[in-house]
């Protein structure tokens, strides 16, 4: 790594991190001196537009890393519980600072009163995405020169006292898997990662703990405004400057009081409300500890330290002498974008990580300016449960017999009328028209549909086992059905695992192999074999009882890749009388004289007045043969005049019975074929394909001659001694071949035409 001395100054002016002076020759672990500044740039110390060294930001914490888990802590009025607002931006590059107090927010600090605080940015508001652009890099390190040892400080469950543990002790044993924990001290409120650096001329030790207080600092991400991860039950919290406490190590997270000391006891503390990573902190009076109970199912402590992308461990021996590929040595992983997520490897898997081969953190390829992929990738579709509701309608399930009874009921208005009249038109005055005049049954019917189900009560999704009379408006009918309150129902079909038939070669995919899926009621839908090969084809049909339609979701494993709509139910037309018109006709009918006339007139009058809401007991209006006090009804009455009953019967046959029809028939064609799904596969055919039980497979023996004369299409990048037989080469590196250039051209030409090796 070349260090820009115009910026850093000459190496002899730099501080050395003890006891690493033996490594000066590579400028590793060198700490450039700083100069106190007062809100501006110290000359020569930083060019804030250009990161001086990749070590400034050799990695960034992704949004899902434990340290960057939650970016805003907002206290509510009662301060319990705390609410947090997640931010998907990876905002927190891993820093290597020495006494730089690199922070997201600067308004937090009073630069004039804190001369030891070095904020190397002229800007009050920092770029949230890469703060390291504005922070002086203190040093780069070789990842293999520094191992972080985890130390935790935890409170007893009753908060009576705390204790500090080396993490392997806190885990109650040396075994890392499975985890156990110290039950007596469940509330972790500080996690430190203590740096152990490589030393020379040591006795029996490879690395030694670096005491920051004595040396003047080798901090990793010190005093960073960690937004707290998801915490358990909040008791107290103080969110001030999260300094390294007694250990002065890497403060992964924790709390401290307003003076920067680690928090314990009942010292009054203050809550700071921080809006966004670069926002202003506002002090809110409160006194709260933030802690986290150890969760044996998720090693969040390891993941927090792993977020720095460096080697770390739980115990002294590994920290001092552990090999970098030993099982107790862990290494935080950095993805291809340079982000850490809290993942880590251990043992020989460490050798596969890029940091294993880094000379220094300057070898990082992380580009803070590169766009970050913030998307959350999932291979699963979530299906919701749809609530059951009918709103202001009722639904009933009927069998065929009940449907015919319903039809009879809808045509039985006159029968009801006669029944209500006691079977005698003469007693029509006993008929109460209210039910029919207020609710024509036909007007109350929304629809009748037939579904292709077997029995009722069916399969657990009918809501009642007993039938109830069907109400049409206010009119109870003699028809009965089972109450039905479901809105949607999922039908599942047998899953199918899709196997390649030709050894997963190009013949297993389009356009050679194609697929169609037949779905009942929906028809056929074309599927892409590439979406399903090696996966499970799943079909879920969601039947909508409100419309009689369905939506079928076609899934590859648990991800919906296609959907198709269809119609499940058949509309059944409903016919019946229009009772409202009948009543109207009855009331307005011309009646001949007869015994029924008086009854009809009485009925008409009674119901008329009843409808008017005028006088109760309207038949009293006919007392003494007169209607009403004035004795008048639609005509002038003279004294002594009255309604009289005449002779002939009321002839209802003069009245046309109006018929109502609801809906029309819909097609039942979809019911005529398979009520199951069927996957139809179209395969290619050739001389070298054999068929057994409608299943094709390759006959490789039949391809032997073809293979010898043509070879199989491939794309391999290997040395040619890995191949035998006919081989065609597109490119070859002959730099180690002793042939002349002319001969090499001849060789290439022959290889590209095809040779036998």
């Amino acid at each position, binding site marked *: 790594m070349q260090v820009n001395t115009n910026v850093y100054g000459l190496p002899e002016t730099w501080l050395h991190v003890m006891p690493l002076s033996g490594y000066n020759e590579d400028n590793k672990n060198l700490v450039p001196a700083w100069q106190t500044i007062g809100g501006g740039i110290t000359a020569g110390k930083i060019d804030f537009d250009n990161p001086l060294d990749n070590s400034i930001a050799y990695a960034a914490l992704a949004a899902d890393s434990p340290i960057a888990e939650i970016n805003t802590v907002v206290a509510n009025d009662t301060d319990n519980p705390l609410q947090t607002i997640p931010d998907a931006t990876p905002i927190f590059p891993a820093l290597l600072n020495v006494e730089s107090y690199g922070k997201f927010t600067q308004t937090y600090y009073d630069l004039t009163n804190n001369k030891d605080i070095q904020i190397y940015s002229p800007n009050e508001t920092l770029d949230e995405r890469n703060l390291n652009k504005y922070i002086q890099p203190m040093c780069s390190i070789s990842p293999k020169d520094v191992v972080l040892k985890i130390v935790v400080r935890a409170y007893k469950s009753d908060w009576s006292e705390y204790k500090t543990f080396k993490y392997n002790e806190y885990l109650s044993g040396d075994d890392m898997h499975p985890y156990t924990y110290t039950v007596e001290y469940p509330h972790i409120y500080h996690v430190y990662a203590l740096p152990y650096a490589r030393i020379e001329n040591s006795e029996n030790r490879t690395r030694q703990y670096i005491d920051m207080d004595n040396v003047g600092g080798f901090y990793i991400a010190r005093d960073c405004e960690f937004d707290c991860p998801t915490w358990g039950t909040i008791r107290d919290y103080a969110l001030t400057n999260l300094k390294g406490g007694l250990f002065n190590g890497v403060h992964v997270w924790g709390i401290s009081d307003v003076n920067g000391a680690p928090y314990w006891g009942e010292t009054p503390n203050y809550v700071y409300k921080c809006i966004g990573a670069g926002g202003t902190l506002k002090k809110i009076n409160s006194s709260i500890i933030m802690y986290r109970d150890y969760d044996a199912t998720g090693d969040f402590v390891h993941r927090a330290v792993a977020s720095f992308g460096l080697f770390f461990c739980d115990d002294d021996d590994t920290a001092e002498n552990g090999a970098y590929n030993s099982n107790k040595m862990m290494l935080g992983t950095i993805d291809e974008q340079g982000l850490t997520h809290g993942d880590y490897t251990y043992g020989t898997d460490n050798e596969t990580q890029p940091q294993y081969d880094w000379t220094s953190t300057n070898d990082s390829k992380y580009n803070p300016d590169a766009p970050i992929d913030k998307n959350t990738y999932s291979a699963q579709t979530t299906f919701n449960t749809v609530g059951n509701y009918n709103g202001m*309608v009722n639904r009933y399930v*009927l069998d065929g017999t009940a449907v015919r009874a319903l039809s009879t009921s809808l045509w039985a208005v006159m029968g009801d009328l006669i029944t209500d009249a006691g079977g005698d038109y003469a007693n029509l005055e006993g008929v109460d028209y209210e039910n029919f005049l207020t609710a024509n049954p036909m007007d109350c019917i929304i629809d009748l549909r037939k579904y292709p189900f*077997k029995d009722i009560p069916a*399969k657990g999704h009918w809501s009642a086992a007993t039938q109830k009379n069907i109400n049409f408006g206010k009119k109870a009918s003699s028809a009965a059905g089972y109450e039905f309150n479901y809105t949607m129902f999922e039908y599942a079909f047998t899953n199918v695992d899709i196997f390649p038939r030709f050894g997963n070669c190009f013949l297993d995919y389009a356009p050679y192999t194609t697929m169609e899926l037949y779905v009942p009621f929906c028809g056929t839908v074309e599927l892409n074999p590439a979406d399903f090969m090696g996966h499970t084809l799943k079909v879920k049909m969601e039947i909508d009882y409100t419309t009689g339609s369905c939506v079928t979701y076609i899934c590859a494993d648990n991800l919906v890749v296609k959907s198709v709509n269809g119609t499940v139910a058949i509309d059944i037309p409903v016919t019946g009388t229009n009772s409202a018109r009948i009543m109207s006709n009855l009331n307005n009918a011309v009646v001949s004289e007869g015994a029924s006339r008086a009854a009809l007139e009485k009925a008409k009058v009674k119901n008329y007045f009843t409808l008017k809401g005028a006088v109760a007991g309207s038949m009293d209006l006919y007392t003494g043969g007169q209607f009403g006090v004035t004795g008048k009804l639609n005509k002038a009455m003279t004294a002594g005049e009255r309604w009289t009953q005449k002779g002939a019967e009321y002839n209802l046959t003069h009245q046309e019975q109006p018929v109502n029809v609801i809906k029309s028939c819909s097609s039942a064609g979809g019911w005529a074929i398979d009520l199951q799904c069927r996957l139809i596969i179209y395969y*290619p055919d050739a001389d070298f394909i054999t068929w057994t039980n409608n299943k094709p497979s390759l006959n490789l023996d039949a391809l032997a001659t073809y293979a010898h004369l043509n070879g199989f299409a491939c794309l391999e990048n290997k040395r040619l001694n890995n191949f035998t037989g006919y081989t065609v080469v597109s490119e*070859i590196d002959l730099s180690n071949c002793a042939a002349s250039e002319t001969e090499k051209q001849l060789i290439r030409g022959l290889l590209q035409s095809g*040779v036998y*090796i």
Partner: protein
Amino acid sequence: MTITLYTITKDNNYLDKTTGVSPINNTPITIDVISRIDNLNPVFIIAKNDSYYAANYVKDNNNRYYYITNKGVDTAGRLVLTCTIDVLQTYASDIKNAPATVIRSESIGRPTIYTDDKLPVYANVRKKSSIEMPETSGSLDADGDNCYLLTVVGAVN
């Protein structure tokens, strides 16, 4: 310089042509001084020997290999072998050790994921097969007279 004569049968596009093939001459043949030594197209002149007429392939004492493209007899009765370099056999070891991008290979053993236009698949011929996927609830029935759903507006029972 000496040469060894062979009669080979393998095509020119084989890297190895002489394995299992015995040379025609028992001892290396010293070429005449007037032979034209050329890297790519040498002409070897040797003493005539009837058994040499069957040769079609030459190896020199530097392990360079040549095809005999023409044979003749000069006025002195010597056999004149006009040759051209066989780069494949000559540099076979270096070639085999060279990293290469291979796009067709017999030793792959079977068709791969890469489309092979040469594979003799029948054009426009497709065979159908199907897999049933019965519903798992066993409730569907198109023939019954059992399941009607009536939606009405009405007072709740």
